[in-house]
């Protein structure tokens, strides 16, 4: 540990209020552990959105199907990095595969992750893109032609029968994929929800709340990406698609909000031993991030905007603007949600008698800068993916209708 972090900790000694156990001064799970559930949530959310198209045959959101898959992949590739970087001994991470402790929720991470990446996402993408890969490998020049050919695993068959089989495979994988996506993120919620020592985390609702907020954030992200990428590609935004997406977003926000409200009311009503310190925690430490950002800016205001847009007849340009603003607000809100869970849960003492403070590092491994890198990296990966695997055909970009 660097002398600077000792220095920070010594300074923090002065800002402790009440009594905490000595070992509780240091916030062990830092901003990186905030980024981790945020990123996995985006993966699960984007994938579940993609599944809507295939399983429930929602034609309206077809234009974002491939984009959602690519988004899920880009974020999934980054998901383990913050975890890895945060370990005290990152070079030993492989131990999780060698001697996993079966009673540990965290030990399952590697397996859930590997399953989701190879068993679901990559497989689904392969079947979805196979026909196009074959076509591209014929149309493109060297070296891209070769790359496409290798990526298609040397297949050449674009007959109707083969393509039909592909589509069937995609559907089947999606059906397996939905519970897998639920598992991927529900399990992240379980990591927190199962810690009985921590009353802020310990709740059976935690996995479900995580899941709902994941769906919210995933849809919101795909909306933003769609609205940014389509004009960049010279296409027209399909308003029908956007209207449907935002409706889903709205329902997801309502369910998410209700679940969190239920959790809150339940705690308040049961009024257990910890209720006092949790009250102080919210009032003293989480006022801005919980009440203002998460609830007001991240939920109530965007939900209000969406209601307004849905009930009044705004013209498409204004609608687009309002959709965009609410999707961004919701995104910030969900990041704040993760912050409030992870950091909030470590700010109060398990003696229930005092609070510590979190001072984010800037430059260190567990600092803001690294966290930002992990948040920006998926967008760079996505940029590359969109280049290699165009999510829209030229014809789709042109003929989109503006209703």
């Amino acid at each position: 540990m660097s002398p600077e972090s000792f220095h920070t900790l010594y300074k923090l000694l002065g800002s402790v209020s009440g009594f905490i156990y000595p070992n509780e001064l240091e916030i062990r799970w830092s901003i990186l552990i905030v980024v981790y559930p945020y990123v996995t949530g985006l993966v699960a959310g984007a994938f579940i959105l993609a599944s809507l198209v295939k399983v429930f045959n929602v034609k309206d959101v077809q234009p974002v199907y491939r984009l959602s898959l690519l988004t899920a992949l880009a974020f999934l590739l980054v998901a383990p990095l913050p975890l890895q970087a945060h370990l005290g001994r990152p070079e030993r991470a492989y131990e999780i595969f060698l001697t996993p402790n079966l009673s540990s929720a965290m030990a399952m991470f590697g397996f859930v992750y590997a399953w989701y990446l190879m068993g679901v996402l990559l497989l689904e993408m392969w079947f979805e893109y196979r026909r196009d890969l074959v076509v591209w490998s014929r149309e493109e020049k060297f070296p891209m032609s070769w790359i496409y050919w290798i990526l298609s695993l040397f297949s050449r068959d674009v007959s109707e029968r083969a393509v039909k089989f592909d589509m069937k495979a995609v559907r089947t994988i999606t059906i397996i994929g939905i519970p897998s996506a639920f598992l991927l993120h529900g399990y992240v919620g379980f990591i927190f929800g199962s810690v009985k020592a921590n009353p802020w985390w310990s709740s059976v609702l935690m996995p479900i709340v995580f899941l709902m907020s994941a769906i919210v954030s995933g849809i919101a992200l795909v909306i933003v990406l769609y609205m940014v990428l389509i004009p960049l590609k010279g296409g027209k935004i399909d308003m029908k698609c956007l209207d449907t997406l935002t409706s889903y977003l709205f329902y997801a926000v309502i369910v998410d909000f209700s679940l969190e409200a239920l959790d809150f009311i339940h705690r308040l009503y049961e009024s257990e031993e910890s209720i006092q310190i949790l009250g102080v925690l919210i009032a003293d430490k989480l006022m801005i991030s919980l009440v203002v950002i998460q609830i007001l800016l991240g939920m109530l205001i965007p939900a209000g905007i969406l209601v307004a847009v849905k009930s009044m007849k705004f013209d498409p340009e204004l609608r687009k603007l309002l959709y965009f603003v609410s999707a961004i607000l919701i995104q910030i809100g969900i990041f704040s949600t993760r912050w409030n869970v992870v950091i909030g849960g470590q700010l109060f003492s398990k003696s229930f008698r005092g609070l510590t403070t979190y001072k984010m590092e800037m430059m260190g491994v567990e600092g803001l800068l690294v966290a930002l890198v992990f948040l920006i990296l998926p967008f760079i990966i996505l940029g590359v993916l969109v280049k290699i695997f165009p999510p829209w055909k030229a014809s789709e970009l042109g003929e989109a209708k503006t209703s």
Partner: protein
Amino acid sequence: MYRRSFLKGLLWFISARIFSRNGVTRAIASTNPDTTATTHANGKSIIKGYDPTRHRYAMGIDVDKCIGCNRCVEACTVENDVPPEPFFTRTWVERYVIKKDKSVHVENISNGSDGPKERLEEADILRSFFVPKLCNQCENPPCVQVCPVGATFSTEDGVVLIDSERCIGCGYCIQACPYGARYLHPKTRTADKCTFCYHRIVKGMLPACVEVCPTGARVFGDLKNRASRLVRFERMNKIHVLKPHLNTHPKVYYADLDGEVR
């Protein structure tokens, strides 16, 4: 043929790792900071004739006897290479002052890691006492349950230890311990906590803190030995453990513990 022997090797490697989980050798190697190398090399000779199944270690704390002198904390720091910083510790002493208006003032008098101190008037005080704290060596330890790699484990003689050679420093156990007993050691970057001085007790010695306590507030013993001081301590006192509702089954027993202590 080649593939076969490779698979065999892999199987060997994995099973060797799994079986090495609960060995006493591993336990000792993982607890004594300065003898790790030698115990690894000749682990057997150091623990000759020691049968862990015949012991069950626990500690008693006589709250009324503690005078808050902190010698236990100092002894522990020296014995176990505990970092000198006040925010990492294996054991500490809390002072409770309950005022006549029933307000409770708690202070850590060992490391001074809590906030600015307030001066209390003697006339306002209802009662006051000291409470030494340490890892409770839980019978049903949440820290062991959550460790993703099995680096934290329970020994057959009832102690919870950390294998610092395997710990990946994820910090999950630190979150899961309800008593704040764990910290991430800044030098090794692995989890650390009280071990009941495992390297001493398997040789029949007392934990360092127990040995130096001038008033006998800390009582150490073997629950499987009827003649042990601890068994007598349990017979003579009303016993309480910390946070019993969490079902961790602590093996640090407090005599005359005040209801305000958490």
